[in-house]
């Protein structure tokens, strides 16, 4: 697998008065087509980290490489074309007055000819299943639908990487599922790499790999199974406990010995079955 993003020893501080760095010597790589979740409690530097990848924030030291470009002032716009970003608040990233206008916004910025634009807007809306809403105004969309439009706006630019900066945190469970499903579909169809910053256990579980941030530093890295097996410590990492972990700790409390490795719900049912047989 080839690397699409390399973050190399970056540090960053918002103001000089701050005692500690918002990011402190962070390094990692992301492979083409990989989905990486970044977790950590609020204020751990997750969003700052995401913003360094498309140059919204310039690190004080270290560098970021996307594709074969090492981010600098000259290629910043090419990198932004390559790295799409969905933000937390669905309302505050909706620029266009209707769904199709919003999807076209990025294309207009690139100077794509109008005839091309019409096709790409339709195509992108189709991919997120929002084509029938093309004429709608944002005020008449749900949060989940607005986020899907934001995704279409990125897909239309044919990027390599999509960053979700807590993109599901303001949505209701239905909206969350809807957006997560859309991300999965789009990722497959477009062969995207995805970086998702999240507190949501389902979103983290969809990733190939999880990076854990704490106080500006990268403290852990591993597959979802490895990270989820930390049990109770997950809460401090800014993630809710997966249900099987909660049940395990309740069982342990009443004297039933449970396996230490991470179990999915199915795994948990199977384990209970064999436990019952052995007893």
């Amino acid at each position, binding site marked *: 697998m080839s690397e699409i993003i390399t973050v190399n020893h970056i540090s960053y501080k918002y103001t000089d008065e701050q005692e500690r760095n918002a990011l402190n010597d962070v390094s990692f790589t992301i492979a083409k087509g990989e989905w990486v979740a970044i977790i950590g409690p609020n204020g751990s530097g997750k969003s700052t980290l995401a913003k360094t990848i498309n140059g919204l924030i310039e690190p004080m030291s270290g560098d970021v490489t996307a594709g074969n470009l090492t981010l600098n002032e000259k290629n910043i716009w090419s990198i932004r074309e390559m790295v799409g970003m969905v933000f937390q608040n669905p309302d505050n990233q909706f620029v266009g007055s209707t769904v199709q206008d919003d999807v076209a916004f990025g294309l207009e910025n690139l100077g794509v000819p109008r005839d091309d634009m019409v096709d790409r807007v339709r195509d992108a809306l189709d991919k997120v299943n929002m084509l029938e809403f093309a004429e709608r105004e944002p005020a008449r969309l749900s949060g989940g639908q607005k986020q899907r439009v934001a995704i279409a706006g990125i897909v239309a630019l044919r990027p390599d990487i999509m960053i979700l900066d807590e993109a599901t945190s303001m949505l*209701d469970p*239905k909206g969350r599922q809807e957006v997560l499903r859309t991300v999965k579909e789009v990722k497959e169809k477009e062969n995207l790499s995805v970086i998702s910053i999240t*507190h949501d256990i389902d979103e983290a579980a969809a990733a190939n790999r999880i990076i854990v941030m704490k106080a500006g530093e990268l403290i852990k890295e591993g597959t979802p199974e490895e990270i989820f097996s930390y049990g109770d410590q997950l809460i401090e990492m800014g993630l809710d406990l997966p249900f099987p972990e*909660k049940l395990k*700790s309740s*069982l342990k409390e009443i004297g039933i010995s449970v396996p230490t490795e991470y179990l999915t719900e199915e795994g948990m049912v199977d384990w209970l079955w064999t436990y*019952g*047989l052995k*007893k």
Partner: protein
Amino acid sequence: MDIRFEEVGYTYQKGTPFQSRALYDINLSIKDASYTALVGHTGSGKSTVLQHLNALKKPTEGTITIGDRLITPTTDNKGLKSLRKKVGIVFQFPEAQLFEETIAKDIAFGPKNFGVSEEEAIERARVLLPQVGLDESFMERSPFDLSGGQMRRVAIAGVLAMEPEVLVLDEPTAGLDPQGRKEIMDMFYDLYKTQGLTIVLVTHQMDDVAHYADHMVILEQGTVKREGSPRELFRESEWLSSMQLGVPSTVAFALKLEDKFGWTFDRLPMSTDELALEIKKNLGGNVGERV
């Protein structure tokens, strides 16, 4: 304080070409010192119901009894203020309501509007800050220098400072991290347990409903579809999923066990602790026959 809705309906922009009916035939009751969960989709009418709980909106049909006050479509707007002291509402993303120069003043704003003296109101702020997980050193700071999660806590303290008898919470933990979510929900539960506060929680989180509430109202398309205890209502898992509402993860897992192992839980477990006990009981009892 009891709150009762009888045949309540509400129509927006009544008598204009834009009129639209938001609520109809609503009957529900919220008992004193209960913890009621109000559940339903976005657009089911939850937020309109919520605004009726302290007469921010008056019904266009039917009657609402709040404590000893009767609200009808013709009730005069004057004199509703005293109700708002008794029923405090923490709106969704309540940090949006902060406006004062200092945190202490913002928390004192509500009580002062209801005639509490300045000193007394500031004193309440001092007592409440630690309760919401901040400390006294925050008193003189500007609310706008805080993180989102801290602003949320200040806003909640601002509602608690009015010392309401009923506390209405509209998705109070939306957008917070799990740690903050748990702290805030536990604080509300503590108020309910120790001070006998009546709590109405509007939420999408079925896990929270199972964990905290003793009464549950399900709204859909502007009317009440079910009302009862979570333990009863979550039994209807098929109906709930047909409404796209889902069940708590504990219940989902318990039902899976019933299905696979042929167990029956007489009391549907509402927490993993209850579930663990049921599992222990079932494993102990059935194991012999099974092998």
